[in-house]
């Protein structure tokens, strides 16, 4: 009997994808309709899913399989941004769509699910592999995991994995508690904490850029890097999610997870291999090396903000406190800027500036690495010759990498001007880039956890953020402190100015 698939051709084929059933808790929710089902449909369209594939949607609303299929059909048509709808592909995909109604707190739900999975295993040949995806309220994560465990669904004929959406707790203690409860039913190796930023092509490309090329790594340290700025800016407000956002805030919603993960990717040590455990070990080590702040340092090195009303493009936009469902005296931060230092030999003394916010001047996520200026200014004109070299990694929009350097202006004089050498991911590789959810769902089905967050990484991130939370919670801020459509509070510029730096205007 062959023990290995003799037909594989790794040079030409896409990655091997095992047969699998994906069980989505919260199948009636926005994430399922907008992201998960369109991503899975796209994978089917691209022939990336195994023949033995099925999806089981779970939510409280009673619904037949057919009604669920209809609903998901609408979702695919509405939210598949760059995928042509193909009736035949849909027809095959829809045959594998099933639905189970029930309350996450009710043991009967898991009994029904168990029966459904057994049927699916027999009819769809899924080999007993199941990926449970928790797309519910965070407060239900532990309950769902325990329900699965108690019904014996955490183990089965095939591989069982659990995908958890952020937030992973709301502080260090709650993150530990959540992990502990998930581990009652699933081993840590079976838990996939999803951070969709890590699924973006450019974030993955950071690894290729740093560790696939020999010329950058020698410069990637405190001798040559002056400071690093990581920006995750949104131009929109809370868009009807005021009530939810009020509980989270920019610090918890963006910095604790997305931006710290991006920072870990840009600053980590080279891993010994590209195996998931090696890469995640290095990310985790970096996060643990970030210096936790004392309360005094928090006051000096962090800036919270909240947007006020403004007129943008001829249109009046409300301030955060005027948004629907938001307390008019809310102290929630919609902007957060922090200065972090990494206590290791590579980065000692180099400030990492992280900022994120809503209703900023434009939507952009990027990393700007500013190098030290040339040690001697021999072309001393207007200070232009001392403009620093910048390496910019754009994550969205227009994923790509730019290097800014000085060049002689054509002509007889020795005048310098900055020029940009651009690599645009979309135009240099004309192929459509998969969405972050396509990448991450496929990784979870295959069992590649490289781009997923591990428990120790979550805890390390909270260890960085929690001292800031503590100080901010006990302080009453004079909000709003920035106008919508600007680059945030003046205090944030002052924070950098104190170190002789200035935020880049992306």
């Amino acid at each position: 009997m062959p023990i290995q698939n003799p037909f594989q051709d790794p040079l030409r084929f896409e990655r091997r994808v095992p047969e699998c059933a994906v069980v989505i808790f919260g199948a009636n929710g926005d994430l399922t309709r907008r992201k998960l089902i369109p991503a899975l449909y796209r994978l089917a369209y691209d022939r990336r899913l195994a023949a033995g594939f099925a999806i089981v949607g779970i939510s409280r609303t009673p619904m037949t399989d057919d009604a669920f299929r209809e609903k998901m059909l609408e979702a695919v048509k509405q939210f598949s941004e760059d995928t042509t709808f193909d009736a035949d592909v849909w027809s095959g995909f829809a045959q594998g769509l099933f639905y189970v109604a029930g309350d996450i707190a009710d043991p009967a739900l898991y009994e029904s699910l168990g029966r459904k999975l057994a049927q699916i295993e027999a009819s769809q040949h899924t080999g007993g592999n199941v990926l449970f995806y928790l797309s519910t309220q965070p407060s239900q994560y532990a309950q769902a995991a325990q329900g699965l465990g108690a019904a014996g669904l955490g183990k089965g004929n095939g591989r069982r994995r659990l995908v958890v959406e952020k937030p992973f707790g709301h502080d260090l203690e709650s993150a530990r508690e959540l992990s502990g409860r998930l581990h009652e039913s699933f081993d840590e190796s079976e838990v996939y904490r999803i951070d969709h930023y890590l699924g973006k092509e450019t974030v993955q490309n950071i690894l290729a850029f740093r560790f696939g090329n020999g010329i950058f790594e020698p410069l990637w340290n405190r001798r040559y890097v002056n400071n690093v700025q990581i920006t995750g800016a949104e131009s929109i407000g809370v868009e009807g999610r005021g009530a939810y956002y009020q509980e989270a805030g920019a610090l918890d919603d963006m910095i604790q997870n997305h931006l710290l993960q991006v920072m870990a990717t840009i600053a980590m040590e080279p891993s010994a291999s590209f195996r998931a455990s090696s890469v995640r070990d290095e990310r985790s080590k970096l996060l643990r090396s970030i210096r936790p702040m004392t309360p005094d340092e928090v006051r000096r090195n962090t800036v919270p903000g909240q947007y006020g009303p403004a007129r943008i493009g001829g249109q009046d936009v409300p301030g955060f406190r005027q948004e629907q469902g938001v307390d008019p005296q809310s102290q929630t931060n919609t902007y957060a800027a922090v200065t972090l230092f990494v206590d290791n030999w590579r980065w000692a003394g180099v400030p990492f500036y992280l900022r994120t916010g809503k209703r900023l001047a434009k939507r952009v996520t990027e990393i700007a690495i500013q190098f030290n200026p040339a040690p001697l200014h021999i072309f001393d004109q207007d200070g232009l010759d001392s403009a620093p070299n910048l390496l910019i990694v754009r994550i969205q929009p227009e994923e790509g990498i730019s290097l800014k350097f000085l060049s002689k202006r054509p002509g007889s004089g020795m005048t310098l001007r900055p020029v940009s050498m651009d690599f645009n991911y979309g135009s240099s590789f004309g192929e459509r880039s998969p969405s972050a959810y396509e990448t991450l769902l496929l990784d979870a089905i295959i069992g590649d956890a490289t781009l997923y967050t591990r428990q120790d990484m979550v805890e390390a991130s909270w260890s960085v953020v929690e001292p800031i939370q503590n100080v901010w919670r006990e302080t009453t801020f004079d909000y709003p402190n920035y106008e919508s459509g600007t680059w945030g509070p003046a205090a944030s510029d002052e924070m950098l100015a104190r170190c002789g730096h200035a935020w880049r205007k992306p």
Partner: protein
Amino acid sequence: MGATVAPGKILKDLAELWVSTAKAADGGAGVLRACSMTLLVLAEASEDSQGLGETIAALMPEHPARAIVVRMSGPGERSLTERVYSQCWMPFGQRKQICCEQVEITVSDAALADLPSVVLPLAVPDLPLILWCRSPRLAAMPEFLPIAAMAQKVIVDSGTMADPAAALNLLAVLSARGVLLGDLSWTRLTRWREMLAQVFENQQYLAQLGKTSDVKLERGEAFAVSALYMTAWLTGCLADSGVHASCSLGPAPEGVSVRVQLAGEGLAVELARSEDRMVVTVNGVSQCTNLSQPTDYLLMREELGIVRRDPVFERALTRAASLALPVETK
């Protein structure tokens, strides 16, 4: 018509082209020059130049290259002429144009022997030179080997050649000499092979593979060489697993381009392709997927992405070449 082409003049023309393209760019945003290889395309002058131009243009965003298109004008007096131009595109939402440069050389058969001395100086330094030979007759000409010797990889389409069996044998000889090769008749099978491999990712089916007793391949008229490759690959893979099934090759029904069936105790697998659909049926459960027709663009896109040894292809080529002679001489 001139009888000589000066590579130095072409390079100067290319440099001037970049200056004029940058000046002509809207709003002074400039252009970006991208290059990852030299792509040498050998085509008959009679071939639809617009279609070929569109294929090359489509390849450029993913495989930016200095494209040197050699158009073979056939018999007649010795002649060589050239022109240079750029191929630019504006990425969505961007201000800057991305441009690649192209050189077109027209050459008569009598001047083919001069081609290496013109092309070598035009190749972009430090980047691979890929030869795409679209001319079926060139592969049989003595000038082919010196031209192929310049390239890191040679891509042909044996299915278009007058004598596919001889073509497969020539390729097998070149491969044995260590030349990196691509054959679009093989590339056409990638998605096929992938779908078949995907079926056996299922451990239950993989366990049944050892009981395969019959392999049946049916192919449409245009897929003779591809079917040989498929047979060679399939039987090779099965033999590696210790499976020795009887194998038959025959014509496909109307509308079906290729159909593969594997049958044995507890296992019935069928892959059938028609138009832009692939239907995979395993033990009665069918799945239909979108599988667009492999245009030259799609095939070349794949081949240009592989500039290294391809052991699976090399093995299938050797086997297909050995299968080809008896089949074609029947």
